C-alpha cells in the first residue's frame, strides 16, 4: 500500500464518537489525542469525564480539541442495566452505552473488552485505541513510520494492556502493508 497522507487527511470525518475513558487516557499518554479531532464531535458522559479528570486531568485541556460532556441525567433502561450487570460494567461504561442507545449512529471508543462485547451485542460500531492509531495512517494524520514508532512505545508510555506478541505482529503487519 502506498501512503498518500496529504490527500487523505484534509476532509474531516462526519462520524461522532462517544468515548469511554480508556482511549482518551491511552491516546493522551501516547501524545496522540489530537487524532480524535478528526471526528465531527467527541462526546463524553459525565461519569467518564470525571474518571478522566481523576486519572489524566491534562487530557481534557489539550489545545485544539473540544469535548462535549453531556452532564444531564442519563438514565439507562432496565434492559441496559441488566446487560451491564451481566458484563460487569462500571457506572461510566453503563452511562456511555446509554448514550450510544440515544445516538446509535455514533462510534463507540473503548479499550475495555467487556464494554466492547456488550456494545457489539447491542449492534453498535466499536473501536479502540489501536484502531485509532492505525486509522491515522489511512486518514493522513500520521505517516506509517511514525505510527510504527508510536505502536512500539505503547508498553513504555501507556497503560494500555496488550500482549507483546500481538503488538509485535501488528507492527510487522503495518510495516509489511507500507513496505517499511
Amino acid at each position: 500500500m502506498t501512503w498518500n497522507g496529504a490527500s487523505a487527511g484534509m476532509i474531516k470525518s462526519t462520524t461522532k464518537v462517544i468515548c469511554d475513558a480508556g482511549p482518551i487516557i491511552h491516546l493522551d499518554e501516547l501524545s496522540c489525542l489530537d487524532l480524535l479531532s478528526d471526528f465531527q464531535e467527541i462526546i463524553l458522559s459525565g461519569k467518564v469525564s470525571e474518571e478522566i479528570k481523576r486519572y489524566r486531568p491534562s487530557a481534557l485541556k489539550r489545545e485544539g480539541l473540544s469535548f462535549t460532556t453531556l452532564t444531564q441525567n442519563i438514565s439507562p433502561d432496565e434492559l441496559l442495566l441488566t446487560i451491564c450487570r451481566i458484563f460487569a460494567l462500571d457506572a461510566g461504561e453503563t452511562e456511555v452505552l446509554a448514550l450510544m442507545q440515544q445516538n446509535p449512529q455514533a462510534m463507540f471508543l473503548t479499550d475495555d473488552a467487556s464494554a466492547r462485547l456488550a456494545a457489539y451485542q447491542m449492534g453498535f460500531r466499536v473501536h479502540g485505541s489501536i484502531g485509532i492509531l492505525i486509522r491515522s495512517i489511512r486518514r493522513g494524520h500520521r505517516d506509517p513510520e511514525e505510527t510504527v514508532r508510536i505502536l512500539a512505545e505503547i508498553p513504555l508510555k501507556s497503560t494500555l494492556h496488550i500482549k507483546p506478541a500481538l503488538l509485535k505482529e501488528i507492527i510487522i503487519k503495518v510495516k509489511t502493508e507500507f513496505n517499511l
Partner: protein
Amino acid sequence: MRTISTEVPEQLYKKAEALVKEGWFRDEKDIFYEAIRRFLDSHQSELMEKFVRDDVEWGLRGND
C-alpha cells in the same frame, strides 16, 4: 487454592459487606471470587485478540 492479599477501596468493601449481611453471599471472599471469575470470563485472551485484530483491519481498510 491460592491466597492473595490486596487493598480494595472502602466503598467497594462496604458494598460487599452489605451483600453478605443481607445473606446473598456467605462471606466477602465469595463475592471477590465471583467478581474475578466474571471479569476473567469477559476478558478472554482470544476475544481481546480478536478485538485488536478487528481494529487493525478497520484502521487499515475501513471507510470511516
